[in-house]
């Protein structure tokens, strides 16, 4: 084999590239020509006009590169073809360039212009590939060009190009670390990207360039968590690892309390518990006590940060990934971040990985071994999955053994030992030796089985295999040290072995044992020394040292019998070749043989030699490995690898969690805003708070697309759905400005309220807000006309959207102090605040008089309702006209837990006036107690990301026996996640949560039959869920069906020609996605239910709910 490949190497590319080309190509006839000539004909081929010849030549050149042959002298000939039309030739030229450009920097510059042209290509894939090659050419001169290209690509419209830009960042960084600051800016920008395609790559760049800039993550944390499941698998690994580190700096240790509890129970445990556990506990105890003391001082029970919870929740499904690296990443995240009670979930997934390739097993087992030391219980149920098969490679066997040993406790030790017994009979001697050591460790850790193990090991001493015996001796030695007095017969037995055993380590161990416990075997010891003295010269060094030790100890305890022998041995050692042994002999002689010169030390000789020695601790080599992040290379090697980022310790107090709130970037980046002012294309407000649009829409990219080639944005349209939307919006942006003004005028004339506001605010502020509302309007307009009427609330909601949560909090306070009947006033307050933060100069303290648009709002909804009424069945009316009577009430607080205060809530199905994106929740408070309840308000709202809550106004007094009603608004973000908060009275706080049925997450819209069908046609495939059902006996007429469906979900009926079909339509409250429901009844109560909804989750849940409503 090797000779043949050597032959190929000499012949170069022509012969081994592959038969086809060589067979058909006349030019490759030069197999036998010299190297120089062969390159000549390659050059000729590259210069020819025929693509096929060029391709042929490039293939041969690439084959040379692949085999590591030098092809650099062809550089000029190859680089000429960089602009070749043939795609494959081009690609191969790229391959060549990337390989050799570093060596031929000057010539490589010839190709740059081609790539620069490529960067401007209308096709995103060509732009991407140009950037990819450009950034892969490691030529320092082009650093500025690369920087420019990356910056440009980072704001490209195509997410794929942005992804490539993210990839290019570490390349440029490794080429020129000076660029770090500029690159960080690009990273910061790309981190804000909201597409899954970019997320993984940019975090990779972040990790390579600036892993210490954890502050860049804050604002993107929640987004990353939420995107995670859709990111490609490699990106997932990088993101999870980074988030693990991030979480360690930002959240509190979830196990603070539990570790304390465990400590209490630890008393019983430690008796059996392995020694290492104890040690660790001790260390940890100290630490934890401090932490605990601090925590206790504050009297603050641990409550997990919702963001911490978010991370844990969103990574958990990834345990089911097919990619072992992803599973491992999640496992280490849980190990390092999750509360103890929850870590267990990772065990199953890790055990599953053990079926994978042996390399995967190797890495997983290393990590499992570390985990089992800290969290033994987690893997105990899977003990048998670690049993060893005779076909496992030795390194896997040894790791499994390690895990089994770590898992051993008093309950399973007997099964484990039985298993070990079969292992000892294995043919793999390295493995047998490891098994014996494992038995030794079990014996030291679990006191009950120490004698059994010892007996077993002693039996092994008569094994035929010397290695087995030797290993047993070493282990027995360690065990005997624990209680030597009981085992003098074993020592005697081992003394006899010195005749047979040749393995030096074992001999040394026996000698040491006899020396150490010579008082237990007074008769045998001198005899052993005699034999050893005889063979001294032929022994290995470690054995010689132990002979000297034995002699010295015997001289001290039994000098009468051994004096001469000791002298003899010392004399032999004096002339040994090894200086260690000579030194030792001299040292011992001075110490034990009293002469007139010997000082005070010899008096203490006995103490020196026969001091009580502590028993050795047999511990796992994996003991302290968990200070490395699990799953990392450093952990595997147990040494810090280059570029390893330490896993930080938990902070003692949590840093401010509000940094993760996504806020308006304005006042953090004031300067950049100033620059952009001129461009008139500012709408970061919108894009940041809404989270619907990619960063392409941010100011820079728009200006780019406006100034750059229009064809670029045009071609984008042919991309995928989401993209085309983006590009459309971007390309429209120019005209928008003009149109905007018209529209604003129109709107202003309609809405005096708005006008008065905008008059107050500065021009710039005004423009921005108009823009937002316009955008919103244009969107909603395209969706349906219905939105137009509700403009007033949409504009209001925007203003809320755009505010940071911090502000909302402020607002809440303001809101609490105000009576509920004047929501609009609050709004003006908000507007004010917002303005004040944005433009201090323009702030005017006097609020202008406002007209309450409540009526407007109500009439709004009424209009829609009435529209529905006029055309659809009258049953609809109870849902909208008389909301509270027919609505289902849910209990929020029972009067017993509430100490007399009971609270019920229902979804009123009224639009929530302060914010159209919120679901109105009506709360009914009843005070059943005998005393008054005061200051009823809510606090400490715990929400999933994206959700928002508008508190109900504080109820100052609720006299005994009285009832009260209040309305709060919750933006559930179109999910059925619960909103958790505390209900506070003047004396108590109650933890409560509101979870909406899916049917309440929507509001009715009116559609005509044709519109309905059109919309339905667009929501096919994945968005359509159909289910067959049998209608409940009481629900077989149209009337009943309509009633039940509208009770289950807040939908409006769509008029329909056929009485066999009932159709309903609605939109989800937050995102406004259409929800279309069709119930088609057939004979005998059979029916089909069909739900079309863009949000599949909502669709699925809705199907369930309606199904339930119709069948019961």
């Amino acid at each position, binding site marked *: 084999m090797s000779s043949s490949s050597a032959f190929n190497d000499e012949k170069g590319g022509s012969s081994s590239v592959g038969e086809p080309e060589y067979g058909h190509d006349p030019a490759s006839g030069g197999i036998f020509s010299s190297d120089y000539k062969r390159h000549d004909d390659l050059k000729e081929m590259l210069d020819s006009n025929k693509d096929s010849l060029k391709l042929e030549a490039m293939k041969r050149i690439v084959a040379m590169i692949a085999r590591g042959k030098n092809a650099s002298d062809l550089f000029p000939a190859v680089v000429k073809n960089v602009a070749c039309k043939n795609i494959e030739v081009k690609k191969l030229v790229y*391959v060549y360039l990337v390989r050799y450009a570093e060596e031929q920097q000057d010539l490589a510059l010839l190709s740059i212009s081609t790539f620069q042209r490529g960067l401007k290509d209308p096709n995103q894939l060509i732009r991407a590939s140009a950037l990819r090659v450009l950034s892969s050419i490691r030529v320092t001169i082009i650093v500025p060009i690369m920087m420019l290209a990356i910056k440009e690509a980072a704001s490209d419209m195509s997410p794929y190009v942005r992804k490539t830009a993210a990839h290019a960042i570490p390349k440029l960084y490794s080429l020129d670390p000076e660029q770090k600051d500029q690159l960080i800016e690009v990273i910061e920008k790309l981190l804000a990207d909201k597409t899954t395609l970019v997320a993984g790559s940019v975090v990779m760049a972040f990790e390579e360039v600036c892993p210490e800039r954890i502050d860049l993550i804050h604002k993107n944390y929640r987004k990353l968590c939420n995107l995670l499941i859709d990111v490609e698998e490699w990106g997932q690994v990088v993101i999870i690892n980074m988030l693990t580190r991030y979480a360690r700096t930002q959240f509190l240790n979830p196990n603070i309390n539990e570790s304390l509890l465990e400590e209490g129970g630890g008393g019983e445990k430690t008796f059996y518990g392995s020694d290492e556990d104890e040690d660790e506990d001790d260390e940890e105890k100290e630490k934890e006590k401090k932490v605990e003391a601090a925590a206790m001082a504050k009297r603050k029970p641990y409550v997990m940060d919702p963001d911490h919870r978010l991370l844990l929740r969103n990574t958990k499904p990834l345990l089911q990934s097919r990619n*072992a690296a992803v599973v491992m990443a999640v496992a280490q995240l849980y190990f390092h971040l999750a509360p103890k009670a929850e870590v267990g979930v990772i065990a199953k997934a890790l055990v599953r990985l053990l079926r994978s390739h042996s390399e995967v097993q190797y*890495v997983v087992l290393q990590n499992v071994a570390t985990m089992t030391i800290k969290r033994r219980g987690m893997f105990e149920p899977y003990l048998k999955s670690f049993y060893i098969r005779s076909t496992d490679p030795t390194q896997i066997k040894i790791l499994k053994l390690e895990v089994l040993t770590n898992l051993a406790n008093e309950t399973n030790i007997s099964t484990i030992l039985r298993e070990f017994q079969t292992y000892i009979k294995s043919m793999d001697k390295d493995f047998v030796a490891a098994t014996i050591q494992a038995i030794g460790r079990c014996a030291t850790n679990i006191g009950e089985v120490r004698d059994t193990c010892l007996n077993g090991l002693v039996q092994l001493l008569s094994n035929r295999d010397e290695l087995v015996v030797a290993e047993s001796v070493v282990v027995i030695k360690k065990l005997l040290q624990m209680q030597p007095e009981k085992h003098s017969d074993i020592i005697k037995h081992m003394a006899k072995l010195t005749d047979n055993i040749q393995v030096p380590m074992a001999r040394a161990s026996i000698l040491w044992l006899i020396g150490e416990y010579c008082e237990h075997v007074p008769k045998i010891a001198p005899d052993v020394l005699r034999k050893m003295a005889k063979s001294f010269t032929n022994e290995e060094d470690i054995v010689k040292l132990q002979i000297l030790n034995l002699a010295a100890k015997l001289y001290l305890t039994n000098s009468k019998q051994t004096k001469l022998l000791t002298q003899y041995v010392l004399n032999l050692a004096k002339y040994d070749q090894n200086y260690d042994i000579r030194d030792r002999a001299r040292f011992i002689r001075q110490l034990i043989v009293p002469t007139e010169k010997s000082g005070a030390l010899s008096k203490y000789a006995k103490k020196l030699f026969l001091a009580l020695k502590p028993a050795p601790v047999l511990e796992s080599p994996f003991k302290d490995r968990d200070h490395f992040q699990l799953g990392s290379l450093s952990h595997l090697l147990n040494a810090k690898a280059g570029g390893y980022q330490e896993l930080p310790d938990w902070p003692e107090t949590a840093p401010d969690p509000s940094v993760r709130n996504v806020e308006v970037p304005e006042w953090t980046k004031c300067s950049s805003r100033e620059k952009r002012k001129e461009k008139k294309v500012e709408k970061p407000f919108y894009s940041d708070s809404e989270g619907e649009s990619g960063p392409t829409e941010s100011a820079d990219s728009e200006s780019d697309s406006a100034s750059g080639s229009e064809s670029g944005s045009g071609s984008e349209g042919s991309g995928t759905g989401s993209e085309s939307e983006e590009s459309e919006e971007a390309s429209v942006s120019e005209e928008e400005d003009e149109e905007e003004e018209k529209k604003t005028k129109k709107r202003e004339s309609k809405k005096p309220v708005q006008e008065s506001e905008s008059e107050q605010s500065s021009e710039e502020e005004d423009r921005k807000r108009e823009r937002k509302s316009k955008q919103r309007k244009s969107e909603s307009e395209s969706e349906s006309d219905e939105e137009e009427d509700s403009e007033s609330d949409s504009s209001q909601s925007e203003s809320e959207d755009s505010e940071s949560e911090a502000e909302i909090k402020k607002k809440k306070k303001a809101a609490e102090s105000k009576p509920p009947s004047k929501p609009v006033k609050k709004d003006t307050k908000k507007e004010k605040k917002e303005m004040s933060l944005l433009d201090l100069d323009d702030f005017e303290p006097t609020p202008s008089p406002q007209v309450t648009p409540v009526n407007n709002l109500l009439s709004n909804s009424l209009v829609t309702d009435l529209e529905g009424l006029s055309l659809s069945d009258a049953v609809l009316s109870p849902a909208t006209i008389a909301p509270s009577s027919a609505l289902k009430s849910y209990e929020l607080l029972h009067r017993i837990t509430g100490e007399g205060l009971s609270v019920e809530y229902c979804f009123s199905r009224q639009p929530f006036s302060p914010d159209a994106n919120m679901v109105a929740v009506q709360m009914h408070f009843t005070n059943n107690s005998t005393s008054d309840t005061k200051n009823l308000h809510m606090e400490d709202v715990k929400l999933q990301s994206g959700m928002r809550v508008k508190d109900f106004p504080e109820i100052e007094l609720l006299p005994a026996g009285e009832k009260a009603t209040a309305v709060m608004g919750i933006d559930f973000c179109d999910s059925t996640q619960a909103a958790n908060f505390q209900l506070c009275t003047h004396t108590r706080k109650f933890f409560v949560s509101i979870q909406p049925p899916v049917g309440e997450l929507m509001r009715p819209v009116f559609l005509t039959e044709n519109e309905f069908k059109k919309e339905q046609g667009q929501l096919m495939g994945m968005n359509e869920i159909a289910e067959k059902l049998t209608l409940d006996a009481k629900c077989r007429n149209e009337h009943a069906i309509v009633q039940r469906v509208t009770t289950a979900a807040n939908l409006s009926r769509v008029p329909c020609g056929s009485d066999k079909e009932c159709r309903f339509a609605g939109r989800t409250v937050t995102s406004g996605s259409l929800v279309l429901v069709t119930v088609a009844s057939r004979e005998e109560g059979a029916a089909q239910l069909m739900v079309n909804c863009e949000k599949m989750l909502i669709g*699925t849940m809705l199907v369930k709910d309606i199904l339930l409503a119709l069948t019961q």
Partner: protein
Amino acid sequence: MIHSLFLINASGDIFLEKHWKSVVSRSVCDYFFEAQERATEPENVPPVIPTPHHYLISVLRHRIYFVAVIQSEVPPLFVIEFLHRVVDTFQDYFGVCTEAAIKDNVVVVYELLEEMLDNGFPLATESNILKELIKPPTILRTMVNTITGSTNVGEQLPTGQLSVVPWRRTGVKYTNNEAYFDVVEEIDAIIDKSGSTITAEIQGVIDACVKLTGMPDLTLSFMNPRLLDDVSFHPCVRFKRWEAERILSFIPPDGNFRLLSYHVSSQNLVAIPVYVKHNITFREGSSQGRFDLTLGPKQTMGKAVESVLVSSQLPRGVLNANLNPSQGTYTFDPVTKLLTWDVGKINPQKLPSLKGTMNLQAGASKPDENPTINIQFKIQQMAISGLKVNRLDMYGEKYKPFKGIKYMTKAGKFQVRT
């Protein structure tokens, strides 16, 4: 991330190298060769080898070492998983992943590696995307290419990378629309001397071959989904739907793929379909040993146990074996001491047996280890866990596809200790 990749064959030649960043000299592989020398068996080369300036992470498949060179901290599994993905891709493209196949297709290999990693970070590893970028070589295409001078590189730019369904390419067309699913279960078991089960678990996979036009949306439901409590999915499976309804809902990739793999570990659930009666003894002082092995079916639900293959590593002291099989053939390799017995199908009426004597080295003492017996078998039309597919539905396309489901049980790592 990954700096360079070296492919090394069994005889220690580096036959391919690829660098994604600056060139790393191939002399770095010397550290690998050192480790290889230290390891007694090829599979005992440690997967991660630290060297002064680099780290070598390797996988061994098809007797080729794929050695990746790493310069800084990176999760080792990340690299290992990627290397396996590379091998899978080669296998997918060339049918086999051998040194010869790689050398024959060196240009395609290079193009693939170029697309799979960018600056050492995985870029496109999904086989559907890669196949759009670089067409796999077939005999026909090679012929056509050589005549017409066209290329293996896709003319169109890949759109898959940009789509929300990256695993499926658009515009798929078939005249026969078919979807086949194979439920394959492997039993891993250790049976002890007395015949009782020490550990047994089932590792199952559902492999699919889907050739459907357009963008079909499939749902697959099971009679007893509760069996599947430990699963891993192809990324196409909608996880939420599974969580909520225990239904697999997915837009399938085009062609062959692994839909899911699952693991059934609860011991009492696992039926062991064969039993082994064995009597392998060596007597002290005698240079002969007895060998007696009988196989029989149990708990097979009436299905035949086929393709049975028994292998056993006999102790080193055994010189020769003189055995007599009641059916099938046996071989004994006196160098590796590996005994293999190709049994074929087990006939419950006439149980297959292998009896005879083993000759030991003269004067050698009785070996103190007992050989382990590894068994391979296949049972068609049965999933030993009892998993059953309920139905397969297709949405989103109008035509009626042809659907098929096949069950099979195999022995995985099935060992009997003696």
